[in-house]
């Protein structure tokens, strides 16, 4: 078992004639939290969608857990242990919280294990237990984010991609969510975190990448990035 879990090399991708990713290289090792920051429209979401098999790369290599996943169907990527908490949460609005969570375990069949993981999800975010019979669409932004995270965990992933988990979430709940991210990582989950709030992201992650219009401009341990002049000026709001 190698230490490298996710590895992108020279990945290009886009939407029809629009080229968004122009040769991206990125790596997530087992046990790491890696953050990807960058301005709006840089291509962060597109990169995560490539990893999940929802956008097909037009060039480069994409490996997860030792296997080439550039052409793997999206549902098989989930089975292989790569889950995503998508931008905007994408909760199933007319399904109950419980149904949303059970769908997270769609790839699994052992009912006893699923029940145990449901209990774990409710322990992680107790508010979900209270709301379990409510329709997903009736939850607040922060509650939906917790549901989206818990739902992604239900497939027992080895790698979790998270796309802007703080977006549209009340500050108090942002803290709860980032505390959960750290806790999940301590239990061994590897995480690739895309985040607008660069301060928070760099404080949470071990390593980071800075993306600018489809390429990686900078990378390194978060401690270094935090003190980088360019990062401070562009993303941390320092002068």
């Amino acid at each position: 078992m190698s230490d490298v879990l996710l590895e992108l090399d020279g990945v290009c991708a886009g939407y029809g004639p629009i080229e968004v990713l122009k040769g991206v290289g990125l790596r997530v090792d087992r046990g790491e939290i890696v953050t990807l920051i960058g301005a709006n429209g840089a291509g962060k979401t597109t990169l995560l969608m490539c990893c999940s098999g929802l956008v097909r790369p037009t060039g480069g290599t994409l490996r997860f857990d030792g296997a080439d996943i550039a052409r793997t169907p999206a549902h098989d990527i989930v089975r292989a242990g790569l889950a995503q908490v998508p931008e905007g949460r994408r909760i199933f609005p007319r399904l109950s919280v419980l149904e949303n969570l059970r769908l997270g375990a769609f790839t699994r069949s052992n009912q006893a294990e699923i029940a145990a993981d449901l209990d774990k999800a409710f322990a992680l975010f107790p508010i979900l237990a209270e709301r379990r019979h409510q329709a997903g669409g009736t939850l607040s932004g922060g509650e939906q984010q917790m549901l989206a995270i818990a739902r992604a965990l239900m497939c027992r992933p080895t790698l979790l991609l998270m796309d802007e988990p703080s977006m549209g979430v009340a500050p108090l709940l942002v803290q709860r969510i980032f505390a959960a991210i750290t806790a999940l990582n301590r239990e061994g989950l590897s995480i690739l975190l895309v985040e607008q709030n660069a301060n928070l992201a760099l404080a949470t992650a071990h390593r980071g990448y800075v993306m600018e219009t489809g390429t990686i401009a900078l990378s390194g341990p978060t401690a270094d990035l935090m003190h980088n002049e360019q990062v401070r000026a562009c993303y941390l709001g320092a002068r």
Partner: protein
Amino acid sequence: MSWFEFVLQQLITGLTNGLIIALVALGYTMVYGIIELINFAHGDLVMLGAFLALTLIGACHLEGSPWLGLGLMLIAVPVFCAAVNWTVDRVAYRPIRHAPKLTALVSAIGVSFIFMNIGLFWGGAPMAVFGGGAAAASPKDVPDLIGHTNLLGSGSLVQITVKDALVALVTIPLMVALTWFVRRTRIGTAMRATAQNPMAARLMGIDVDRVIGATFIIGGALAGMAAVVQSLYYNTISFQMGYRIGLDAFTAAVLGGIGNLPGAVLGSIVIGLVRAFSDGYGATQWTNALVFLVLILVLVFRPSGILGAHVREKV
């Protein structure tokens, strides 16, 4: 016939017609709900099913053993329609899944024409039941397999016939089973999830193409059931019948709230009742206009239909 008996009779006729429409409307609304395609060919699929039913009656001499025949038809025709519907999705809709919605709509209209022409050709088959040859395009009589004994006794002016009972006995359990399937099974939940957010469904590890295929299979099977029931109820079929039943079913689906299963049944029953009362009062020429008047009135006050989605997604 007293006023009361008249109303009762129209209610019975309307409900029966509504239940037949509902089987077709359910297939329409399920497919729309999951891929936002108005499957124009759905009514014509019912027509093909009806032609198979009549072929079976002719080929297997089912007039002699009506109940066995009914059983055979209720298995063979839905299986046939399910297979055809799945194949249509596979060859005509799936390859253009990511093209603009209008593309698939045109494809569906094309499939509708192909089905109608198959029906025309099929109607010319050299079989006694079809008339054959020159009579290819003419409506075909379906033998009255189950008769129309009045269950209320021959003295009663109000009629609930064996046929009405057959319609209820086939359609209502199917609707209950469908509700259970969609609410309680794994694949049913996957269908609801795909309808609500296909991208999120794929992120859950759901093979969305298979779920859509399953939807076409179920919609097709229901259309096949409708074909058998409809043929035995009205005792006449024609290669053009798909237009009328498709239009009724589509209107019903929109009326109830497209994409909504109970809505499709409710819309169908409303349309069945409007038709029955309009016809009953001798206003046959106004019936279609009346159906659409009801549709327009409902949509003016409830643009997403009687039971259309009310839970709004928070962003």
